[in-house]
């Protein structure tokens, strides 16, 4: 096969940028570490670490509680973080931006609260073949409770939704469409604007699982006109344990609270409780204040680099890695959609992903192996799992070269 080497177009100052991520400097198994598992969880820039440290050293108290100044400062920091994130995703109002623990909790909240309000026996929930378990299981749970059923939007072998199926799938019984913006296992970027337009033309709201999209793309919830959009902080260079559920006020107003407790109430008696207004109605208990503040710092960091530069760099990495990996005999890429994020799942003929992953690890290269929490998708492809290399903007062309070299050595050893 004639391989035309892609131009290694350098749009970012990698040396300076990588210095912002101290963990990337640590050695791994005697080699400089190559971290290619950002789709599972990304690393954190110094500015996020410093923000967390500063918050706990100088600002921490419980929020929305105290009359004293420190509590007010903590509340201000927490609500300022909400505004930063609202601006980041272009939410019309910060009332529609709820702090949750992560994407999983965001989906569970919608499945449970929207489901209890709007699902009737016989209704349908439309998901797709490429969903993460966290966008399957919560819907199965509420479907069972309400007597609804799950419908699955099929995909092509390349890993793209079969668009021709959409018309028939979005029938009158469908009460919500829940689809991933970008597939964590395949990298497919779904045509979410078209999906939302079609669903809305039939009065169906749409939830997007944005966990994999938010680290890569500019997300504008108003331009998308999406009803619910949820993502995790730790995949976008922020802390673990914090995430966002954006929801349109018209839906959130009609949905019952998800958790009960402090903060989400207006007035409590033993007979009856009335609920607080948005967003607090959905934020029972002391929130992850430091997480929220850290997430806002991650937003600032991403904006300082810029979505355009991030997109260009990652696309160049994706093209280069795809081309170089395909030069390895017996290597097959799973997920070859026309629109892809910088995620490459692959298998090598006759070799198990675990063995490749274990050997790469000893060469200092961290990749994910296995089913990537997408067992139905792996079953659809008839494979037990893949090796997945996922790239963030802090990955370099050298990282790609180390990966390719590592896979070649692993194949040599095992085959």
């Amino acid at each position: 096969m004639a391989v035309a080497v892609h131009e290694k177009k350098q749009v970012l100052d990698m040396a300076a940028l990588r210095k912002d991520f101290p963990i990337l400097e640590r050695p791994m198994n005697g080699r400089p570490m190559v971290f290619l598992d950002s789709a599972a969880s990304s690393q954190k820039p110094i500015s996020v670490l410093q923000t967390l440290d500063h918050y706990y050293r100088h600002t921490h108290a419980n929020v929305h509680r105290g009359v004293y100044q420190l509590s007010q400062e903590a509340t201000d920091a927490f609500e300022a973080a909400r505004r930063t994130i609202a601006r980041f995703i272009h939410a019309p109002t910060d009332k529609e931006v709820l702090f949750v623990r992560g994407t999983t909790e965001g989906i569970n909240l919608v499945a449970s609260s929207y489901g209890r309000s709007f699902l009737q026996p016989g209704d349908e929930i439309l998901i797709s073949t490429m969903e993460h378990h966290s966008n399957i299981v919560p819907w199965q749970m509420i479907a069972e409770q309400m007597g609804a059923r799950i419908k699955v939007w099929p995909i092509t072998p390349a890993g793209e939704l079969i668009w021709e199926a959409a018309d028939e799938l979005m029938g009158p019984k469908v009460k919500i469409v829940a689809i991933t913006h970008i597939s964590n296992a395949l990298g497919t970027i779904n045509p979410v604007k078209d999906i939302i337009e079609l669903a809305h033309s039939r009065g169906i709201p749409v939830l997007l699982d944005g966990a994999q999209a938010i680290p890569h793309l500019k997300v504008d919830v108003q331009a998308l006109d999406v009803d619910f959009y949820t993502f995790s902080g730790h995949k976008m260079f922020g802390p673990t344990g914090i995430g966002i559920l954006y929801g349109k006020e018209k839906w959130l107003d009609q949905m019952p609270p998800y958790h009960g407790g402090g903060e989400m109430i207006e007035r409590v008696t033993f007979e009856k409780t009335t609920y607080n207004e948005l967003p607090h109605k959905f934020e029972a208990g002391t929130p992850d204040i430091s997480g929220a503040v850290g997430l806002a710092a991650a937003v600032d960091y991403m904006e300082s680099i810029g979505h355009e530069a991030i997109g260009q760099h990652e696309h160049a990495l994706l093209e280069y890695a795809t081309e170089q990996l395909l030069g390895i005999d017996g290597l097959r890429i799973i997920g070859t959609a026309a629109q892809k994020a910088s995620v490459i799942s692959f298998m090598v003929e006759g070799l198990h992903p675990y063995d490749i992953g274990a050997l790469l690890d000893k060469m200092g290269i961290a990749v994910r192996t296995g089913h990537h929490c997408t067992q139905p998708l792996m079953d659809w492809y008839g494979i037990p799992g893949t090796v997945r290399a996922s790239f963030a903007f802090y990955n370099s062309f050298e990282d790609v070269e180390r990966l390719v070299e590592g896979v070649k050595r692993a194949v040599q050893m095992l085959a």
Partner: protein
Amino acid sequence: MSEKLKQLYQELILQHHRHPVHFEKREDAGAVIEAYNPICGDRFQLYLDMADEKIARISFYGYGCAISKAATSVLVSQMDGQGVIQAAQTIERFLHALQSTEENPILENELAAFLPARQFPERMQCVTLSWEALKTFLAGY
């Protein structure tokens, strides 16, 4: 590549991975045992014929990493023709050696080849997957 890792993926293991012993599906087997690890997706079927308190015939089929496939291949080669009690003792001895910190526990060469896995706790389940499944079967036999 580290020395430790080379020991884990040593030639004896790679040979069993490339050319597993009694690697065949059998529709007519007297018993079929499934060894499945939901975390990594490895899945093997062990096919057995039991006769006169013995494992008269054993084969396996399925999919797993080099370590789990080799460990299953060695299991099958060790168990073929063994009495139930003797088989259970061999399994026990092997699993015990894997848990021990003793430098060179007395084991057949084929079994001792897996001792370097003690340096890789995350790979221990690859070694023991089929062994544990057969142990459970024999305990209930």
